């Protein structure tokens, strides 16, 4: 049984899960809505705050943990998933939520993404995808289109095809793949609830515009549309759906239950006994 413990007695509200720290985000940043959606989802599930741990890397998006009133770990760039894996291995009782950006997760953190999908530990991974490195002032990320030339570091665009988060997650073996949009926080928090309740590694890509370095993303409001198909549990079908999709659809794409990696942490011997093996 892997879905988090739910305590409905107190009927908490989203704002109970907000910390007192003021976000450093630019006015209009999509990440605000992700913060709201997370707190809403936590409230909906009535999770005891102290049993929630939010882990992140570095980036605007990765600032999330401090804004949530729970346990948090703001680690280094690209390494949120390993921190979360160690935490969950040691503390299966916690609800572990990992949050970060497209740079953090798909560029420097790409290897951990692959292996976290395979490992299928019971946690939720939210990637706030704005197709840019916000924190470092606007360079191309793996999800940036190849011809985006607004960064001085790649003035003619990267010339490299976009990283396909859902396709990679699927190929790597993720068991829950969804896409949300910060412009629709209600649906987003609904997806988050599903993700948190999914027994295994739940990957949720969130289209979350960067007001400052990708101002054109304000048009995402018009471009995002619901995922046209019902979610599937069949990987081949999922691959087709993902390939046929324009990357701007929101909804659950794929979910399947597969064995979760989780150590048992059950004592079966004491150390003094084990030490006997060294006696000649």
């Amino acid at each position, binding site marked *: 049984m892997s879905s988090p413990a739910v305590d409905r007695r107190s009927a908490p509200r989203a704002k109970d899960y907000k910390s007192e*720290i003021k976000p450093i985000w630019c006015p209009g940043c999509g990440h605000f809505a992700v913060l709201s959606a997370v707190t809403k989802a936590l409230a909906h599930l009535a999770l005891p705050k102290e049993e929630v741990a939010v882990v992140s890397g570095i980036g605007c998006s990765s600032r999330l943990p401090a804004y949530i009133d729970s346990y948090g770990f703001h680690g280094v760039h690209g*390494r949120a998933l390993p921190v979360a894996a160690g935490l969950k291995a040691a503390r299966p009782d916690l609800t572990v939520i990992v949050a970060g950006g497209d740079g953090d997760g798909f560029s420097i953190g790409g290897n951990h993404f692959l*292996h976290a999908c395979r490992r299928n530990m019971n946690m939720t991974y939210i990637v706030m995808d704005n197709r840019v490195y916000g924190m470092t002032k606007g360079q191309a990320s793996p999800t940036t289109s190849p011809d985006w030339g607004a960064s001085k570091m790649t003035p003619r665009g990267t010339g490299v095809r976009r990283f396909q988060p859902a396709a990679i997650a699927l190929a790597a073996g993720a068991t829950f793949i969804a896409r949300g949009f910060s412009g629709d926080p209600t649906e987003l928090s609904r997806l988050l609830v599903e993700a948190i309740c999914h027994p295994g590694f739940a990957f949720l890509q969130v289209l979350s515009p960067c007001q400052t370095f990708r101002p054109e993303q304000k048009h995402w409001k018009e471009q995002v549309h619901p995922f046209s198909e019902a979610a599937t549990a069949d990987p081949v079908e999922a691959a087709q759906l993902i390939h046929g999709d324009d990357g701007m659809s929101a909804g659950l794409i794929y979910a399947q239950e597969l064995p979760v990696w989780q150590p048992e942490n059950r004592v079966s011997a004491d150390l003094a006994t084990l030490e006997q093996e*060294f006696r000649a």
Partner: protein
Amino acid sequence: MPPDHASQLPLRLSVAVTGSGGSGAVTTGLGYLEAAARAGLYGLMNRSAGPQIRGGESAAMLRLGTTPVACMDDYYDFLVGLDWLNIDRFTDEIPLNSGSRILADPDAGELPEALTATGAQVIEAPFREQAKTVTGGRLNMVALGTLGAASGIPRETMQAALRSVLGDKGEAVMSSSLACLALGYELGSANAPAPLPAVLEAPWNISGNEACGLGALRGGVRFVAAYPITPASEMLEWMAPRLEQLGGSLLQAEDELASVNMIIGASFGGVPALTATSGPGLSLMMEGLGLAVTSETPTTVVNVMRGGPSTGIPTKSEQADLNIALFGLHGDAPHLVLAPLDIADCVFTTEWAVRLAEHLQTVAIVLSDQSLGQSRAITPAPGLRAPPLERRRLDATPDRYHRYSLADGDVSAMSVPGQACGMYTADGLEHNEHGTPSSRAIDHLEQMEKRSRKLHAFAYGERWAEIDGDGELCLVTWGSSAGAALEAADRLRRGGTPTRVVALRLLMPLQRSALLDALAGASAIWVIEQNHGGQLFHYLVSEDALPGSARSLARPGPLPLRPGEIVTAISEA
């Protein structure tokens, strides 16, 4: 002139067994070591192999004695050659002189020039001829018997040891092996010396890697994440099943970036956690370790050093990762560095490191090396335990919890997820007392001083070093070099020069005033270590912990430091 070791150390015996791929040199060594243990002797066994992954030539190098054996001798008393293919790969590692004896099978072909040139006495030992008389007989078992007899180990002890080493190899192998052992024993009984007297009761037979693993478990480690690397893997392989039995786990990570961050996560969750690696992996962990230092998350790394730099010489030993361990983190990032002084001490030092990391909420790097990790020792059961230091938990229920509080000592109480009044966000960004990111100068200064002061103000007690003897001549050393330094000191004393040894176990923070006390009155100080740059020497100088006259005696790997070369260098200086 090299000292005549035989006359100085009559109760020690050095034996090397070599052979090409599949000849069983290492099994012979393991059987011999186990037999020595059962005979109540101290012992040490290194092994060496060619570059092939498997099937290449290999050598087992042993030294037995009636007092603790912490290093290999200058020369070997016996060389047992199962064959002479590729023997030149080992001639550097197995020095022989005219006092040495070579047990040579006449059927193995002519003795290579490199061996005859040593002046060693050659004794014919028809291993093959004897082995042929047994169905499925193997010549290495004959050699094992011969060795046992020639060193006065009782026949029954040899048999028991062999049984234990072959373990689950099946009855056919066991009986043919025992038959060969018996034949070999006859061969060697001719001029058998008086046996070395038994001095140990119920000793342990343990490798340095196992010992570090055990120390970690004793220290409370219940989560390990790691990525395989030579020569650290055996530590992890020993720990994996045992962690499970103890209610913990080992996670084989995708790389070292993951492993170090995984243990940080587990530790944040309240479970003492450790990783083990070697130089290249340690390099990859430096960013993560800085995060642990800054977020004050207890973390221990055992770095089993190998020849550097870069991929270097993965299967050989060197003490050249001291610099990176001390200074390899970006920014001012105070942390702990320790080094075990011998195989048995791997247990204590690793336990102590884990407990210090937990107690001081910082990073501890333990510098073991290949010569400790992949060698086995016969040693009294390691009974010395580290002080039972633990993490300072949050046990109050504060109105507002300040994870990095300055109000109540430098080590602030650390909550664990699940505690309702202890919620905080750990951060690698500079932060204020509460943990909120801050770029204010005052927060930066206060938190840096906190992280530094908590390490410097702690009373580490007596175990920062082992101090032996007191003469005006003083050998300062660290880690695995302690073995050769201690024996060199012994020889110097026997030669009439009172000699002191200060073997540093706690390298950072340097216990400078204790060290200066320990050096008081010494007029000739040598800093002994196995690397090219004299890393400890320069570090001690940088801390103003050595008089100006102190000298560096640093020599890189891959060959082990030998007591004789230390004595020679000092005598000839």
